[in-house]
């Protein structure tokens, strides 16, 4: 019989397809793992609904469960009960070390442009707060592009959801 802990450990081996330094568990996108008589139901929420890695992540989770000898059922939960605040502290540190500034905490209402321009965003390389917004959008929907005036390095800022 497969235990939930084994499933979590197996899922923790799946790297985020777009940011492979962090696992899908550290990314906090796994909502729940429910094991019942060889049937494993996983619920997850993509950072953004337009995430190009959604199908890849789903297939990787199914493969991990199947490798444990259980029958997978992976469900995508598309609601607002997930936020980037769910990224684990370890995950945030891994992101920072790889040059991705972790997301700012979620607030009651969605962020405004003025906040992205005026709030403090720290450079993941040198720690300076002298950074400016280059582009609200980046290589994937979940990232923005910023530039550090101190170390003159462009970097990617994880968006707050």
């Amino acid at each position, binding site marked *: 019989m497969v235990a939930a802990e084994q499933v979590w450990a197996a899922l923790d081996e799946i790297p985020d397809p777009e940011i492979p330094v962090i696992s899908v568990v550290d990314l906090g996108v796994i909502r729940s793992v429910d094991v019942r008589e060889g049937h494993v139901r996983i619920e997850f929420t993509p950072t*953004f*609904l*337009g*995430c*190009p890695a*959604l199908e890849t992540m789903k297939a990787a989770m199914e493969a991990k469960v199947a490798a444990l000898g259980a029958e997978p059922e992976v469900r*995508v939960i*598309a*609601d*607002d*009960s*997930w*936020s980037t605040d769910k990224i684990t502290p370890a995950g945030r540190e891994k992101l920072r070390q790889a040059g991705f500034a972790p997301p700012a905490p979620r607030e009651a209402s*969605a*962020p*405004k*442009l003025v906040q*992205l321009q005026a709030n403090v965003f720290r450079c993941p390389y040198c720690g300076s707060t002298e950074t400016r917004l*280059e*582009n*609200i*959008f*980046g*290589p*994937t*929907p979940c990232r*923005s*592009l910023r530039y550090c005036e101190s170390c003159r390095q462009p970097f990617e800022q994880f*968006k707050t*959801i």
Partner: protein
Amino acid sequence: MPAPRAERLLELADDELVLGWHESEWTGIAPTLEEDVAFSSIAQNEIGHARAAYELAAADLGTDADALAFDRRPEEYRCAPLVELRLLDWAHTIARRWLYETADEVRVTALKDDPDAEVAGLAAKIDREEAYHRMHAEMWHERLRDEPRFREAVEELWPYAVALLPEKLRPELATRTGLELPSNSLLQGKGRGEHVAELAEMWDEMTMVRRSAPAGAQW
């Protein structure tokens, strides 16, 4: 009595799919590299919203998201003419982005209170993501608002944006944009359920690959 939820979902999904498709046409030819990135990302995310809404609708209609996106005839789509227009200049493209995002915010805000919990949950998720599209639209609106070409484009597209929303939500759109609601005669031919010629042309291209293989093909 509210319309069946599949209908509300298809209106949203068709708008986002068709607009996302048109926005993606700017990839590689936008005026700056940063806008290439922005339009590609916005397009991808709009189509992601369409996929999520099609999936919910498909569960009710006993079909799947791809069939809803690609196997209907153009006249069966529930999108509004605003998103169907093939706009080939930047002033019009930005005018539509700004008008669409403002109208979409009014619609999505209303859907967050939908009696159906799944529709309301999806709307709340979409709203959080669209916040970034709105920032982009507002940034450009600030930059171009006094340019004559942009003002003319807004004036031309404004009735289309109004006609995208049901009547009861239109005053809210007028408040948010600071524009006056147009007379009913100006809305003719621009309402949801009516289509402009560009939709059929786009549909032909959008569904070409899928139609090239017999039904049941595995990709």
